[in-house]
């Protein structure tokens, strides 16, 4: 099976050596389609920063291999050589930020439609049906016409996730998607992520402090300890749970 993501010898640093605030090494990480990984570790260990690198929002300090499978073929894109890959977030890679995630001047529906538009799938019946299904799953169907100021914190969080989920992707990254949500909504979010992973072969990477919830939902756990992400068995773990 062609992996969705293949990383070798990736190093992330905040600040310049030797006074870097932290350093995170990822010796190797390979994600197959449908893999779900939850990155855990203490606050400040670099979970969000790692996810930003995966989401192409931040450049790693160095990397040997950083390949992502193209959206419509099995070709691998070398992200280690590109300065700006922001357009890859239009469809290939989805990123859901930890907080906010909703533009203040648009309704939730308009922001989702913009995302679909950029991905080139706006207007299709499949996309509309899929969106309705996901909105129901996240209990957002009644709230899509609202702007950020009219949404509660939890609703904003789920709308941001819905924006990320609205486009079928190879890789979806969500930074602490359940933080601040009640148990019921956190369960909805985790279910939605796992469902998309299974049904659409999307590899999902989240950061979380709730290891139990992630494990219950079927996520493999990758832990950051002493500045190293240990995720060698992630794929195998997930398959075992699956």
């Amino acid at each position, binding site marked *: 099976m062609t992996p969705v993501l293949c990383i070798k010898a990736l190093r992330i640093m905040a600040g310049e050596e030797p006074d870097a605030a932290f350093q995170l090494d990822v010796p190797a990480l390979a994600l197959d389609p449908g893999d779900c990984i939850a990155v855990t570790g203490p606050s400040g260990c670099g979970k969000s920063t790692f996810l930003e690198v995966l989401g192409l929002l931040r450049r790693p300090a160095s990397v040997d291999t950083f390949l992502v499978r193209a959206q419509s073929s099995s070709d691998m894109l070398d992200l280690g050589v590109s300065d700006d890959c922001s357009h890859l977030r239009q469809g290939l890679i989805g990123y859901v930020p930890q907080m906010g995630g909703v*533009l203040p001047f648009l309704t939730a529906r*308009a922001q989702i439609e913009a995302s679909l538009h950029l991905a080139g799938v706006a207007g299709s019946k499949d996309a509309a049906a899929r969106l309705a299904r996901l909105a129901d799953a996240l209990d957002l169907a009644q709230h899509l016409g609202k702007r950020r100021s009219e949404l509660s914190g939890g609703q904003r969080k789920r709308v941001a996730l819905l924006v990320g989920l609205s486009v079928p992707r190879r890789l979806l990254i969500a930074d602490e998607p359940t933080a601040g949500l009640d148990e019921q909504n956190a369960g909805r979010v985790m279910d939605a992520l796992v469902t998309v992973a299974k049904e659409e072969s999307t590899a999902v990477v989240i950061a979380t402090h709730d290891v139990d919830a992630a494990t219950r939902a079927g996520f493999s756990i990758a832990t950051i300890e002493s500045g190293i992400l240990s995720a060698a068995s992630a794929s195998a773990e997930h398959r075992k749970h699956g």
Partner: protein
Amino acid sequence: MVNPFVTKGNRAGRRLAIRFAIADLIHDRLLTVVGIVLLAALIAPPVVLHTLRVGLVETWAQDLAKDIRNREVVIIGENRITENDLREIGGWSETGFVVPEPSFFVSTQRVRKSDSRGVAVDLNLRTTAQSDPVMAGVTDAALGPFQIILSDRAAERLDVVAGDNLTVLLARTPSDATPVREPVALTVVAILPQQRWAGTDGFVSPQTLLGFREWLTFASDDPTAVPVIDEAVWQSLRIYAPTVSGATALRDKLEQFGLETRLMTDQVDRILKLETGLRQVFSIVLFLSATAFVITAFLLQWLSVVRKKRDFALMSVIGMTPADLAVFPSFQGGVMTAIACLISVVLVFALQGPVETVVQGYLVTPSDVQSPAALPFVMGFLAAIALGAFAGIAAVTTLRPEVLSIALRGD
């Protein structure tokens, strides 16, 4: 090595950026209005000042320039001007028209309409000759002896029209006798319109006045005799520069020649100086406004981008490229500047009425108030809009990837 899969944005991203920019302008309407008002406050002053300068000063200046009297250099006092002097002065490039005039005691005469008991009027008799700019369009031919052209006011006071006869009541007093009166008939050949000559004056040929002088000074017993003019000595001139702006040069030349003068163009001079002054003020205001506009446009866009960097980060998250992101503030900058320009244009149109009223009150001859040419405005507005748009692009370049990722962490 260039990744062949990486492309730089697409039209969908640009269109979306414009939609977002419009939505944000409406959503943040209070700040949008403040920004537009601020920009309009910087664009409007030079626009309004330029319109006022053109409307008020240039219209006045052109109106005064059209008035022939403003080309005249008035000779003060009595002088001794020979025919040779006259030929020399007439040959100067600074001279547009010149005609000699006798002493004041010759030119001021009591006149009455012939064959009537009408009122006698003390008329100032001026000289005229062929190509007299004052007579342009009234009569092109040189006046013959004993013909007169009257100003409108003089004709009204004497109750005459063209074709009527006047009687000049010449009077001289021998030292040992009673005053002798000698009536001389003059034919009115034309009436000068009020706009052309405002005084109570009549215009005759130099020979006519020379004949009067000969009789008044006892050099002749017949005031109707036409004397030889070649050897005459005159006391004054009626002299005009070719253009209003040339009047000062003619005055200087005459003063070098030894004649004391006064400019009829003082008013024009003042207007022209006012125009020059306003032009300088306009340049200063334009410079200050342009500088303030550049600073404000860049600051507004920079502040907007800093304030909305989380929004930019979210736009980047859904896949908008840096080029797409640049469209957002540049469109907003361009639109806000365009609206500010529009406000300035509306102000200019609003000023048209009051300016027209003020200017018409000062014009000698009613005429259209000058409007500034549209092209410089259009060019200026386009430059301002382009600058406003560029300010947005410049501001968005501060959004480096690490800035966006930091912005994403804060709510």
